């Protein structure tokens, strides 16, 4: 299965990205979009799968924001 993923950034002013992944993203995973690293916080299926392709909408947040929220 190929996962075509729309990465949308929560907070900040970053445009996000679109790319194909060979493995389904999971909550907490780190992803690199352009020069920045983000953490996956939500995954939604936005269209029914077609053939070997699944279409996902993934919300991410900057890693710095995730680390600030984590308990010390």
């Amino acid at each position, binding site marked *: 299965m*190929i996962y*075509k993923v*729309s990465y*949308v*950034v*929560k*907070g*900040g*002013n*970053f*445009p*996000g*990205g*679109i*790319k*194909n992944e*060979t493995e389904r993203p999971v909550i907490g995973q780190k992803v690199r*979009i*352009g*020069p920045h690293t983000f953490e996956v916080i939500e995954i939604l299926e*936005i*269209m029914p799968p*077609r*053939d*070997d*392709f699944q*279409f996902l*909408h993934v919300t991410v947040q900057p890693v710095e924001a995730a680390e600030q929220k984590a308990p010390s």
Partner: protein
Amino acid sequence: MATPSIMKHVELFRGLSDEQLAQVALLGQEEVYQTGDILCEQDAPGDNVFIIMRGQVEIRVRDRSGAQHSAVYLGAGQVIGEMALVDEGKRSATVIAAEDGTTVFSIPSDEFVRLCKTDTHIGYLLMRNIAQDLSFKLRHGNTNPSSD
């Protein structure tokens, strides 16, 4: 030349048989870019379709004031230049490599269109897949807070 097995991971080619993929693979060539290299510039003629095989590119759009802003990053499997292919207009954005070794498969637009016209089954599949890709990109833009 892109191999048909790699092309199967690209939605643009969804539904094409191995034989049809081999036909498409003959049309283009691989190009490798380093960070900051410009693949194409906004308002230039849209004479190539690019498929990202490896790495990432940044899509930058210049607004009416002349300021350029980042619209989206596209990674492996994504298509660039399909708008100019469909409407024969100029490039809608500037495309810049965002990673060293970003590799694209570049197909001359006129060759792409010629194949679609001579083999209408391939043409239907490619145009259907382009329409679905544009739909996906619109959905990304509609849900992206930074595009508000």
